[in-house]
């Protein structure tokens, strides 16, 4: 097994998924919103980046737009598109709470996925957009894959700092107040529904950016990369790391991606054993999920650490 290559992949993909997990953490732990369709915002970012940087369609291509703009325009567009999509989907869904919100966001993500799959004029349908522009290349002696890992890590760091700034401000304390007691917060003048909508919109932006970086990294924007499974994986990462802890969420993302990449990179002798390994990976992830929710080890560690100080 090629460990350095594996670790660099884990660092890159882990950072990308870490960004999504952080956004989910903000929505769930601070905003009290269960978003079961987070993959859609991720996909919007990836597709927007691909469409903005893609050359005009030719030959067998069925997509209608390829703007062929520089990469930074694509990245900006990805963030903006995710924001716009959050505004569009948040408007009807955020009136719902709890599990109804979970179901509607899930429904929106499925509708969007089925749209990408069937509407060839956006992104070639099932085939997807390939050869998505990779802007960085080798930086002198540094190979491209390290540059990528660094870019992904920077995005994660930037998201982390931005969210921390936000949550440390009076705005963040107001959010916590709403989460803890909505009636009390509203009666002291905090617009709960409005603030929740703002959190939903703000947290969609880094998810869109992460989608753009993901599309660069895989050089693909394809419906099969953006299934409900992505949503579940990010949720598992969030729950793994303790849903209330920002660092836990990031650690959970890295741990899960590491686990998956190891299984993927393992040299299997036969197709059948590789297939069984894939199923075992599913079983193990599921068990981990159940066990962590049941015993909540990370919450306990945190509480103990707090009690000591």
């Amino acid at each position, binding site marked *: 097994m090629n460990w350095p290559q594996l670790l660099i992949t884990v660092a890159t993909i882990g950072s990308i998924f870490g960004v999504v997990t952080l956004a989910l953490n903000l929505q769930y732990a601070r905003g009290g919103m*269960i978003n079961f369709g987070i993959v859609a915002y991720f996909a919007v970012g990836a597709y927007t980046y691909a469409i903005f940087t893609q050359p005009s369609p030719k030959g067998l291509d069925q997509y209608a737009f390829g703007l062929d703009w520089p990469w930074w325009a694509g990245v900006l567009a990805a963030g903006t598109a995710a924001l716009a999509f959050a505004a569009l989907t948040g408007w*009807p*869904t955020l*009136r*719902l709470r*709890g*599990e*109804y919100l*979970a*179901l*509607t966001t*899930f*429904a*929106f993500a*499925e*509708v969007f996925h*089925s*749209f990408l*799959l*069937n509407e060839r004029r956006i992104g070639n349908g099932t085939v997807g957009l390939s050869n998505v522009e990779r802007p960085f290349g080798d930086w002198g002696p540094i190979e491209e894959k390290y540059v990528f890992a660094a870019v992904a890590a920077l995005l994660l760091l930037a998201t982390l700092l931005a969210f921390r700034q936000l949550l440390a401000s009076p705005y963040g304390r107001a959010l916590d107040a709403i989460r803890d007691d909505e009636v009390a917060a509203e009666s002291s003048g905090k617009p709960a529904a409005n603030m929740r909508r703002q959190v939903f919109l703000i947290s969609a932006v880094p998810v869109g950016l992460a989608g753009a970086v993901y599309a660069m990294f895989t050089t693909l924007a394809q419906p099969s990369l953006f299934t409900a499974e992505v949503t*579940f994986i990010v*949720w*598992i990462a969030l*729950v793994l790391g303790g849903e209330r802890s920002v660092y836990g969420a990031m650690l959970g993302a890295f741990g899960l991606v590491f686990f998956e990449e190891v299984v993927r990179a393992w040299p299997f002798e036969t197709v*059948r054993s590789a*297939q*069984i390994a*894939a*199923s*075992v*990976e*599913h*079983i*193990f*992830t*599921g*068990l*981990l*999920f*159940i066990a962590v*929710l*049941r015993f909540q080890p990370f919450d306990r560690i945190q509480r103990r650490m707090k009690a000591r100080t």
Partner: protein
Amino acid sequence: MLFLQYLTAGIVTGCFLILATIGFSLTRQVEGFLNIAHAELLGIGAFTTWWLNASQGWHILIAGPAAVIFTALVGLVIARTIYDPIRRRGPAVLLITSTGVAFVIGGVIDAMVGTGIRTLDIGLATTYKPFGIRVTDYQIIVVALAAAVSVSLALFLNRTRIGLAIRARAVNPELAASRGIDVRTTSRVTWLLSSGLAGVAGVMLAVIATLTTDLPFHQILQILAVAILAGLGSLYTVIASGLIIGIAMDVSVYWIPAGYRPLVAFSIVIIVLLFRSEGLAGTKAA
């Protein structure tokens, strides 16, 4: 004529969706959370039938009921070992846990069955042509079974002591408990019932669909669509919304490509939620 043919297919799809969703809705009402793993219970039913029928050579009329009983027991065991200990953490944690359960069941089925299409050892469907519309005998069985299950469930919940106790618990658990209703027994009966219903739907899935291991997971989308549309209502809204979604999905094929079927189902759901955030039933969530 073609339109009527699609309409017929839609009614059959709707009846299957009723079978698949009734158990899910029952869990939602009585146990108070959305059990994402319900679709994987369908998978257990379908693949147990396949294994008993195709590998062990049991007749479908024996293999089917055996699979239903097995699925009901598996559902009860999962509920007692996994859901019960975390019940007090609330519906969101239960919902997320059930996703984990779905992963585990899906993985186990995948590891045991493997990829590829599985077929039952039963005769090919016979086609009838009343009024020029093609209907197969298996399609008729699905419709008949959905009707029989709905009627017997309605009778059970309205006429028997335990059925009334289950409904009492669904409406107000604290009051039901303080009035001396045995919470444990009703919970166990509910799990057996809802998982058994998933088993019935699973057997039907094995009979009418091309069976692959990823099929059960795809059912959850449609089950969710029907359940959201029905809202927190009675059995009857599940029947109505099952038919609405089934017919809408299949009739839409008349105008737009078949790939858009899930999109049609969820578009209906979203439109309904925009106007009635509580679904068709009209009762607010507690």
